[in-house]
Structures are given as structure tokens and as C-alpha cells.
């Protein structure tokens, strides 16, 4: 866990502070801030409360949220009420809710830390005075600085969002009576010592199995608790995340009365053990039963909010209609509403429009990212790229995220190794983490070396000498394998069947090599005559690299006879060859790559089916709404991801991006099936367009196919990682729940295996859960469910979510390989039966 890194180390609490009895109450020492003649009383404070001015975590500003008392019109000689009734005697106008950045505190930092750690339900007995924070009632004036202190009497409401799977940090936004909103304050609970201590205490006091050591208690709970000591805090019935401060009768009515008056957001904070007896509904509201809460939040409601696409479409429809570049069918569609009706059954114009609306949305997001995050942003984009960055920041450890995302240069790579022996001096995982996040430098030749490790040609623990020996023997072996088919080509094959297969494979390879990556310089030329005058390409000529490609693929065909060459493999080899520019090295790198890709090429397509099924399960779990939509569009076969999964996005990204993507995937740093999360990231990126505009399988397929060449890699990688983390947490949450049996699971039903039929299953099937797949030990036969099977269901906690074996495998870093026997049986080459 991250420990707080304050500019000064927190002072140890003074003994007197704890030893004081109630009698001494009135005689406490007044610690006055030395550099200031006048101070305000720091009643409560909480550390590690951040403002996130930009989506980038590196811009986050740590600070304290504090409740301070200033000398008000009503002079109260005791600002430390011990009960809420006496608390009310403090005038709300004398209380300020403030946020101050750590950097502005100077000497008073220690005082803040002390008060933060005072670990008491009432304010410290000692009166801690700090310099008054600048009082502001409006955020608009404070350009450039986010610090604020607003009289509690000026606060109209607080928008309180507890942390959740979706929204990593809990947040709080103060809205003033004047209608202003202050920047959202994010509670980095895991860095906040006082919150950590309070959690531990809570866990000790009330046994709450779901609390996981009081894990779901968060900083925002505390702020509400402070305020409730002094003012009336009423939760809105209509909008549960809104807490009204001293609301008028009118406000109460308009926000719905139902909410429990002035109730702590977490019962256990008030009543300790009594929380278990409180009705479930009350608990769910603010108490954040982690299951309910996480599953509720996992609905991805933020994504729904992004569906302003249609507004954009409408607004700019006129502009489109006048744009001469727009295809005629689109113009017609816009100009003539009748056409729209006629074309309802199918129209490609709709897809065009959808994509185009996406572009506008992207632009607006970019603009939005320039701004500070205020209440409306939090409401509108409950989840956003900010959330993603936050999660990533958590994991970054020693290096900052931007350092981590710099490509590994040849120099950095060389420094990983001992200069003498050439052995790795750090752990392979550290190297993998760097490559996973930063990639390898595209131009300095580091790939040539590093890819050999990533592709399993070199062992991570080898020495320079061992690698030399390794490569030498591999060169010999390559020449031997190549010689074997060469010889047979001249002397003939043992059987007619083999001869036939060979001829067919040779033709296939020849055809495919001549149409693989011909826009890449090394594959471009046709400067040498074709060696075989009978080849269909005899007239067009060839080049030395194309011939090398053919030889390598023919050698692979020889090396792995059970499978042989299958279309798509040339796409997988060409980047490796282009980087290595050495046929033997590229060949063995390709062999290493193919070990994990083999399953995709089996004759029975079982590997591809399984991956499409895994994606199906993943979307069901992570985005049930989108899944339902895809189901209604007959698209849960996920066939439109076939190409991406088969050749690892080779056709979707630009060449340079493919290299970067692949080296990251090869690390298996988070999962050996990380490419599935890339698919999910791409799908989620376009989810709103899909849900809004695409109603049929053909529309979805066309739309996804045409993403080719338009996908931005960097943001896709960030999104994929965030999705992976979220997936991991969802699995953990569900597992945790499974360990603590809840009241009889009325919804638990065993799903019947559906056929691969594309027709949507009845709604009830969707609601049922695949309890059959809870056990990870199900035999392989059972795992082979047809694409579209329903496994993890339900949105709320009242519905059951189950992690299928396919999903669980996504957490593994172990590469799944096809067994020799399976390859022989399903490979479709000549080695088998």
C-alpha cells in the first residue's frame, strides 16, 4: 500500500492529548499558529483529499478537507461539542468547509496531520488554531487555485459519491446556495492514514464480513459525520447522492422526503454493531454493502451518459447535408425524412452517420478534458478517462505513469543486463512491466534483441554466451528444416496425398505472401524475376524479402506438419521478419509466437470459438446493457471480432502500432489473454454508437470492420488496462461474496445449454445464471459451450453473477497452448490421421 508522503513527517501524538479527562475540557492548551496572530479552530480534517484538475494523475493536487470554526457573530466558548444537541449551538455561518492544498500549508501542515490522526469521534480537545483559509463563496473567482473555504451556511448541498468499482475514488462536491459548484474532491482513502486507522477500528468493533476490515468505510463518511454534528444534513430521496445542508421545507419536498433524516451514511459509524440489524435498504443506500455497491456501480452507468451522440448528430445534420464529400445516400437520408423511413430495414448511411458522430464526440471529450472537474462533470461523466488514469496510478509504484509509458530504449535495455555475463540483473517481471506499459523504442534496434526474449527464443535467465550458443544451434536447425522440404520438393513426396497437400500449401503461401503488407517498404519491390516460371506470380516478379517469407512459411509448414500453413499466419510472421531481417531468427520468433496462436488455426476452429465465447462472457459480466443490445441485434456470436482475434489486430492498427501492441501482449504481464481486453476496450469505446444506431448483425459487423485504421492505440491500451483492473476487482468481489453465503439464492438457477443459434434467448434465460460453471473444475467438454451461452448475469446484487472458467482463465498469465495430441487430431495438416 502506498504510504503518505507528506512534506514533513507527522509528529507523534502528545501524551497530554490522550490523557486529558472530561474535567479538563475547558482548560485545554491553545496551540496557536506562530506566524499568525489570528487563527481559526481546526475542528476536523482529513488528509489525501485531491483535486484532479486534468485527466492525468500526475496533475492531481493533494490537500486536506477541513471543517474549521472562525470567530463568528455568536461566540461559542466551546467549539467541541460532545453531543449533537450542543453542537447545534455553533452557528453554521461560523463554520467553514475548506479544502487546502498540502503545498500551501507551510508550518501548519503538522497541525493538520495531528488533527487528522486524532482518531476521535469528536473534535480534538485541544484547540488547534491554523491560519484562516481564504474564504470564498464562489469557485469562479479562484482561477488557478483550487483552495476554498466556504461557510457551511452557504452550502446548499453536497454531492457525495462513495468509491466503487467503477469510480475508484469517492468524491464530494460542494454546491453553494448561489448555485456555484466547487471542484470535486477525491478521497484517496488508501493513502489517508486516518481513514485506514478508522477502517481498522470499525472492523474491530463490528464484525462485518463484507466490510473486509472495514474496507468500505471511506473518507466522505467522515465529512458527513462532522457536518451532522453542527447542521441538519438531509439525504435527498430523489437523488440519493445529494445531501442537503439545513434544507428548507421547500427543498425537502422537491428532493423527495423519503430519505432518512439526518442519518449517517453508514450506520455502523453511529451505531457499531447495530448496523447488522438495520434493514437492507438502509444499508444499501449509503452504507455501501460492497456487493450491492460494486455491482450497482459496475453497471457502467457512466457510459450511458455519453450518449449525447444523437444531439450532435441532429445539430450538425444540416452541415452534413451540405458537405459535398458526404455519400449521396447520407445526404438523401438527411434531406428527406421519408427516405429514412424507407431505409429503416437497412441502411449503410446510418452507420456512416454513427461513425461520424463518434468523431465529434471524441473531439468534445478532448475539449472537456482540458477543464477542471466540477460537479456537473462528475454527474455527467461519472466514469471517464479520469477514472482510468486514477486506477493506473495506483499500480504504478516507483515510476510515475508518464515515465512508465516511455518506450524502453536500447540503452535502458542494456542496463537491465550485467555488463560482464549478460545476465538479467532485474526480474523478468520488471522488464515485462516496462515493456507492457512503455513498449520498446521503435528505431534504435532494441526490438531485435528484446523480441527474442518475449517470443521465448531466449531464456530470461540466460547469459550472453548461452544466447550465442542458442542462436547458433537454431540457425543450424532452421537450415536443416528448410533443406528437408527443399529436398522433397525435388525428389518427390512419399505419398500422393502428401504431394497434393504440399502443392496446395505452397500455392497458398505464395498467394498470401504476395498480398501481405506490400505497403511496407521491404515487401514493396518486385525487382527480381520469380524463381519459378510456373508460378502464377511469374509475370509480376518478386523481391528477396518476399522469397524469404515464403521459405520461412514453408519451413513452418514442414516444422508443424500437424497444422501446416493456414491463412493469417503470413500476417503474424511479417512484423517479426521486418524487425529481425534475419530469416532464422525471425523463423524461431515466429515459432514462439505460433505456440500461443496455434489454437486459432485449428481445423475445427475450437480455439477461435473459445475466444469468441470468452469475449461473450466478458461483455456479459462487464457491460450487461451492451450485451443485451448485442443480443437483440443477433450479434452475440461476436463474429465481428474474428479478424481482430485471429491476427491480433494486425488489420486494425497501423504497422507501427501493431509492433507496439504485440510486444505488450507478448509480455503476458497482466494476462496471457490480454488481447481479449483490447477487444473489450475497442467495443466499449464504440458502445454508445452501437447501442444507439446499430440494430442488426450486418450493421454491427460492418461498423466494426470499418474501424480498421481508425483506432487510436494509446488510449485503447489505457482503457484495456482499466477494464482489466475492473474485471479483476469484479471477480474478487464475486468470489468474496461466494465465500459468505447470503440468504438462499432464489435466483440461482442452472442454465441450460443453448445451441449456437443466433436467435436471442428468452429474457428469463438471461436473468438465470450459469451456476453450472461456478466450479472451475468443470471438464473441458463443459467448457465448450457454444458462443452466446449465458453465464454471468444480472446487474444488481439480487441477481447472481458467476465467473465462468473462461473468464477465470483471463486472470492467468500462463499461456494456453494446444497439446500435441489435440494438434494431431484437429490441426488439419498431414501429420494427423
Amino acid at each position, binding site marked *: 500500500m502506498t504510504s503518505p508522503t507528506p512534506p514533513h513527517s507527522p509528529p507523534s501524538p502528545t501524551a497530554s492529548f490522550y490523557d486529558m479527562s472530561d474535567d479538563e475540557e475547558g482548560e485545554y492548551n491553545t496551540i496557536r499558529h506562530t506566524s499568525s496572530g489570528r487563527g481559526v479552530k481546526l475542528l476536523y480534517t482529513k488528509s489525501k483529499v485531491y483535486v484532479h484538475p486534468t485527466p492525468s494523475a500526475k496533475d492531481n493536487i493533494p490537500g486536506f478537507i477541513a471543517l474549521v470554526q472562525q470567530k463568528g457573530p455568536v461566540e461559542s466558548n466551546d467549539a467541541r461539542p460532545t453531543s449533537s444537541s450542543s453542537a447545534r449551538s455553533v452557528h453554521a455561518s461560523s463554520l467553514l468547509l475548506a479544502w487546502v492544498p498540502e503545498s500551501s500549508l507551510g508550518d501548519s501542515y503538522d497541525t493538520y496531520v495531528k488533527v487528522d490522526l486524532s482518531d476521535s469521534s469528536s473534535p480534538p480537545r485541544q484547540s488547534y488554531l491554523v491560519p484562516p483559509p481564504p474564504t470564498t463563496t464562489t469557485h469562479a473567482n479562484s482561477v488557478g487555485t483550487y483552495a476554498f473555504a466556504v461557510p457551511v451556511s452557504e452550502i446548499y448541498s453536497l454531492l457525495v459519491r462513495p468509491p466503487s468499482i467503477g469510480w475508484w475514488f469517492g468524491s464530494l462536491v460542494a454546491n453553494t446556495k448561489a448555485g456555484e459548484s466547487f471542484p470535486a474532491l477525491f478521497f484517496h482513502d488508501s493513502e489517508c492514514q486516518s481513514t485506514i486507522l478508522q477502517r481498522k477500528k470499525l472492523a474491530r468493533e463490528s464484525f462485518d464480513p463484507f466490510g473486509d476490515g472495514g474496507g468500505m468505510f471511506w473518507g466522505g463518511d467522515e465529512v458527513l459525520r462532522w457536518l451532522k454534528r453542527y447542521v441538519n444534513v438531509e439525504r435527498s430521496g430523489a437523488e440519493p447522492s445529494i445531501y442537503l445542508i439545513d434544507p428548507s421545507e421547500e427543498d425537502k419536498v422537491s428532493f423527495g422526503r423519503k430519505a432518512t433524516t439526518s442519518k449517517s451514511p453508514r450506520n455502523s459509524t453511529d451505531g457499531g454493531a447495530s448496523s447488522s440489524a438495520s434493514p437492507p435498504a438502509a444499508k444499501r443506500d449509503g452504507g455501501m454493502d460492497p456487493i450491492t455497491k460494486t455491482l450497482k456501480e459496475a453497471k457502467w452507468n457512466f457510459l450511458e451518459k455519453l450518449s449525447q451522440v444523437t444531439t450532435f448528430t441532429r445539430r450538425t445534420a444540416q452541415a452534413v447535408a451540405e458537405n459535398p464529400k458526404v455519400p449521396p*445516400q447520407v445526404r438523401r437520408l438527411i434531406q428527406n425524412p421519408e427516405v429514412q423511413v*424507407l*431505409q429503416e*430495414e*437497412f441502411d*449503410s448511411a446510418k452507420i456512416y452517420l454513427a461513425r461520424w458522430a463518434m468523431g465529434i464526440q471524441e473531439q468534445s471529450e478532448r475539449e472537456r478534458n482540458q477543464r477542471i472537474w466540477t460537479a456537473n462533470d462528475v454527474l455527467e461523466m461519472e466514469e471517464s478517462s479520469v477514472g482510468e488514469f486514477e486506477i493506473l496510478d495506483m499500480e504504478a509504484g516507483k515510476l510515475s505513469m508518464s515515465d512508465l509509458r516511455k518506450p524502453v530504449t536500447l540503452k535502458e535495455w542494456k542496463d537491465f543486463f550485467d555488463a560482464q555475463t549478460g545476465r538479467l540483473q532485474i526480474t523478468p517481471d520488471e522488464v515485462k512491466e516496462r515493456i507492457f506499459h512503455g513498449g520498446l523504442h521503435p528505431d534504435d534496434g532494441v526490438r531485435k534483441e528484446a523480441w527474442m526474449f518475449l517470443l521465448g527464443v531466449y531464456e530470461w535467465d540466460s547469459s550472453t554466451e548461452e544466447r550465442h550458443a542458442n542462436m547458433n544451434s537454431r540457425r543450424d536447425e532452421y537450415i536443416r528444416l528448410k533443406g528437408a522440404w527443399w529436398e522433397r520438393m525435388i525428389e518427390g513426396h512419399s505419398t500422393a496425398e502428401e504431394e497434393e497437400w504440399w502443392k*496446395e500449401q505452397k*500455392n*497458398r503461401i505464395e*498467394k*498470401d505472401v*504476395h*498480398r*501481405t503488407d*506490400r505497403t511496407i517498404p521491404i515487401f514493396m519491390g518486385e525487382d527480381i524475376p520469380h524463381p519459378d516460371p510456373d508460378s*502464377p506470380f511469374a509475370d*509480376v516478379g518478386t523481391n528477396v524479402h518476399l522469397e524469404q517469407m515464403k521459405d520461412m512459411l514453408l519451413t513452418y509448414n514442414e516444422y508443424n506438419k500437424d497444422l501446416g500453413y*493456414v*491463412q*493469417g499466419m*503470413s*500476417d503474424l510472421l511479417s512484423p517479426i521478419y521486418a524487425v529481425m531481417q534475419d530469416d532464422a531468427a525471425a523463423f524461431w520468433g515466429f515459432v514462439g509466437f505460433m505456440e500461443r496462436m496455434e489454437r486459432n*488455426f*485449428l*481445423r*475445427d*476452429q475450437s480455439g*477461435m*470459438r473459445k475466444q*469468441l465465447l470468452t469475449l461473450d462472457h466478458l461483455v456479459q459480466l462487464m457491460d450487461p446493457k451492451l450485451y443485451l443490445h448485442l443480443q437483440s441485434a*443477433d450479434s452475440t*456470436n461476436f*463474429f*465481428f471480432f*474474428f*479478424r481482430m482475434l*485471429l*491476427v491480433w489486430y494486425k*488489420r486494425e492498427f497501423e504497422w507501427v502500432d501493431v509492433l507496439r501492441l504485440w510486444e505488450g501482449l507478448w509480455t503476458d504481464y497482466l494476462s496471457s489473454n490480454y488481447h481479449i481486453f483490447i477487444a473489450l476496450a475497442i467495443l466499449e469505446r464504440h458502445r454508445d454508437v452501437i447501442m444507439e444506431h446499430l440494430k442488426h*448483425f*450486418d450493421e454491427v*459487423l*460492418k461498423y466494426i*470492420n470499418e474501424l480498421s485504421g481508425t483506432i487510436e492505440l494509446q488510449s485503447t491500451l489505457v482503457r484495456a488496462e482499466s477494464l482489466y483492473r475492473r474485471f479483476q476487482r469484479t471477480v474478487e468481489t464475486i468470489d468474496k461474496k461466494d465465500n459468505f453465503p447470503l440468504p438462499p439464492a432464489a435466483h440461482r438457477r442452472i442454465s441450460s445449454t443453448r445451441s*449456437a443459434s*443466433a436467435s436471442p434467448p428468452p429474457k428469463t434465460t438471461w436473468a438465470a445464471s450459469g451456476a453450472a460453471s461456478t466450479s472451475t473444475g468443470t471438464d473441458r467438454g463443459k467448457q465448450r459451450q457454444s458462443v452466446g451461452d449465458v453465464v454471468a448475469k444480472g446487474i444488481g446484487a439480487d441477481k447472481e453473477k458467476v465467473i465462468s472458467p473462461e473468464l477465470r482463465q483471463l486472470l492467468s498469465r500462463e499461456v494456453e497452448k494446444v497439446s500435441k495430441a489435440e494438434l494431431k487430431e484437429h490441426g*488439419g495438416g498431414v501429420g494427423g490421421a
Partner: protein
Amino acid sequence: MSSKKKVLLKVIILGDSGVGKTSLMNQYVNKKFSASYKATIGADFLTKEVVMDDDRVVTLQLWDTAGQERFQSLGVAFYRGADCCVLVYDVNNSKSFETLESWRDEFLVQASPMDPESFPFVVIGNKVDVEESRRMISSKRAMTFCQSKGGLSYFETSAKEALNVEEAFSAIAKQALAQEEAGDFNSDFPETIPIDLKNDRDGCAC
């Protein structure tokens, strides 16, 4: 019968890899030819609006698929509802001609049209621009095959030189439209069976 609704005709193009399926489609729809289309992975389609003889406008949806046979097994989703199937081979590659029959059988299994006997197939021998000496399959042999399969339409084309491509696809459109209308008639049949809840009371006596 003729509704105002725009007619969408779904056409599946099959054949060995490298016979020119993608090229034919692109020549017909985009009037373009490229020698270096990448091998098709998965499936994709192009659409084109066609004015029929009776001035009706229909939309052709042409589905392009991967040629290597092992990739066909996942294609069920888009075979269904096809109105016509185009079988393409390369006249300079006898193997691609020999597999036509299995492509046809595979299609019938996967698409399972209501009446397999009358389902329209169109055969295209592509790459006739290549010098005659390389040609492996004669027109006569191809036509004999088409005859034996119940009189399938046959065209010889060059996607590269845009030879006969338009003609082949307008025949495809016609056959697809005829099939679609026949299908419409069939699927309309159940709708003529009156399902009237008010009559339930009367019928309940039995």
C-alpha cells in the same frame, strides 16, 4: 404483395482462397481493381443499389468470406437468409474448379434454404485475362458442370479488366430478387392464418 419497403438482397460469394472474390466485388461496387487485396479474414460485405428492369431499386448486399475452408465453420450467422450464392473459381486453377461442388454443398448445409433444389447459384470463372496458355478449365467443361447441377448460370469474368463483371452481377441481382419474392410469398403464408383472440371464445367449445 409489393410493399413500399426497400428490398435488400443478400448474396454470398464463396470459392477457394485467391480466386478473386474480393476483387470481383470491388470491381462491381467500386469500379476499382487492386492486385494486392489482403487475404480476407472473417467476413465483410459491400452494398450496392441496383435499378432492376421494372425500375425498381433494390439493395444488393454482397458478402465476402475467407477462402480457406476451415474458416467457413463460423460463418453460419451470415449465410442465413441469403437470396443467392455465387461460386467463384479461377479458370487457371483446376483445384479451385474441383472444389465448387463442395462449396455448393457446404452452403446448402449451412444456409439450409427452404427449397435447396431451386435455390439460385451463379458460377463465375474469374481471371480470364491471364494468357490462354495458363488456362486450366475450359468454358465447355465449366458449362457442363453447371448443366449437371440443374442449369446454373455461368459467367466468365476478369475482375482486373472489368470484363463481364457487370453482366454477372445483374444476373445475380435478378435471381436473388426472384428468390426473395418467392421467399416472401412463402413466409407470408402463416400470416394468412387468422389468429384472432376474439374468436377464442367460440373456438373453445371443442
